[in-house]
């Protein structure tokens, strides 16, 4: 497989590139980014069995992406924030007719790129948008859990990240954007929206993440899982930072409308990174890990049943394993589904989980148990 990694010098791009070089299916990698020095450094570090090339590229320019991707089997877009890079990467992929996987994690972008579906079908190009942790792994966990149920009533997805767990600038900017916008959700079969944030709700993630305060916000899962389960009664997405003070800062900036543009969000992302040691020193003590949890409620034999799946690991491991699995599936043509696809439409959830297990990452299933402390 020959792959073009767009945004290769970013946090997730570097990790995905390293993961791709470990795969025996990969023959050649072309690293694309805006910083030539960093690209050369990375190429020198990674050169070995896999042939490494570099190219200067602006991920928000579709023509540049099309030109760079003509000689590869798959485009892996790790560039962000999604609303600036995703449409251009996909348009570039369609122009070149090259399959593409992206980390797109912006709700409105996921809605807008659906308009490119017809061109993707016409050009027989398979695009899978949102192949990171969230969306990506979360969608496939939801679908995996849903396999056990005859009727799906409710899905709730919760994700907890840490500012100290390789949370890149693009992801912080995306978080600021999500909390500056309305939160879309499904309640009583209706698509609704309300101001993002709202009241905190504690969610219990696999250890070492544990309990984390989460808040309502919009995310692509609400768009794509709604399409997958059109009769669903309730569908919500919640997220939070393990650093509670950091989450308060993001919610405060969004509520005061201090992050209306990407330029402002870029500045705040830098400020948050600069004061991150101070934020981390505030109570409560926060783990430097990332967790995701999916609750799927439905019926089996007429009985109400809830299946809760969760995972905890470092963010870069969770993101890179998902995007690399998707890239190898598309690059080797095991998955061919022309159009703009959500991960759950194009990828097999069991195959992704097997890929995770092969890397020593395990998914947990929550079993309710009565603990001493809960009796008080």
């Amino acid at each position, binding site marked *: 497989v020959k792959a073009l990694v767009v945004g290769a010098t970013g946090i997730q791009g570097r990790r995905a590139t390293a993961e791709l070089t470990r795969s025996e299916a990969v023959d050649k990698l072309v690293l694309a980014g805006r910083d030539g020095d960093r690209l050369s450094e990375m190429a020198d570090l990674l050169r070995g069995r896999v042939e490494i090339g570099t190219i200067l590229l602006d991920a928000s320019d579709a023509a540049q992406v099309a030109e760079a991707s003509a000689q590869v089997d798959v485009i892996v877009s790790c560039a962000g924030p999604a609303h600036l890079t995703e449409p251009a990467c996909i348009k570039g992929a369609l122009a070149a007719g090259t399959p593409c996987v992206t980390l797109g994690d912006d709700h409105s972008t996921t809605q807008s790129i659906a308009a490119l579906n017809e061109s993707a079908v016409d050009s027989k190009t398979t695009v899978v948008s949102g192949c990171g942790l969230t969306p990506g792994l979360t969608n496939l966990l939801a679908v995996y859990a849903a396999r056990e149920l005859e009727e799906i009533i409710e899905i709730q997805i919760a994700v907890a990240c840490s500012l100290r767990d390789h949370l890149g600038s693009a992801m912080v900017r995306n978080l600021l954007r999500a909390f500056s916008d309305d939160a879309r959700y499904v309640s009583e079969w209706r698509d609704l929206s309300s101001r993002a944030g709202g009241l905190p709700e504690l969610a219990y993630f696999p250890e070492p993440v*544990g309990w984390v305060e989460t808040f309502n916000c919009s995310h692509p899962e609400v768009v794509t899982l709604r399409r997958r389960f059109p009769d669903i009664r309730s569908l919500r997405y919640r997220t939070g930072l393990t650093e509670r*003070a950091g989450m308060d800062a993001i919610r405060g900036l969004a509520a005061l409308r201090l992050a209306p543009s990407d330029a402002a969000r870029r500045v705040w992302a830098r400020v948050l990174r600069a004061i991150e040691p101070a934020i981390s020193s505030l109570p409560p003590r926060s783990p430097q890990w990332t967790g995701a949890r999916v609750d799927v409620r439905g019926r089996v034999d007429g009985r109400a049943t809830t299946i809760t799946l969760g995972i905890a690991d470092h963010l870069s491991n969770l993101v890179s394993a998902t995007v690399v699995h998707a890239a190898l599936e598309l690059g080797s043509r095991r998955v061919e589904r022309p159009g703009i696809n959500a991960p759950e439409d194009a990828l097999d959830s069991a195959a992704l989980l097997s890929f995770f297990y092969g890397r020593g990452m395990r998914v947990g299933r929550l*079993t309710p148990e009565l603990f001493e402390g809960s009796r008080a």
Partner: protein
Amino acid sequence: MIGRVSRLAAIGLGVALGAWWGRLLAHSKVPPPEGRWRELKL
């Protein structure tokens, strides 16, 4: 007048910071685990 306004602003800021600090401390205690995470067998 300016002294009074700045004193009130300082008190308001102090109260807000105190309330926020109180929230961080009060929420430091978390509930017992909701259950046990068992490895999902594929």
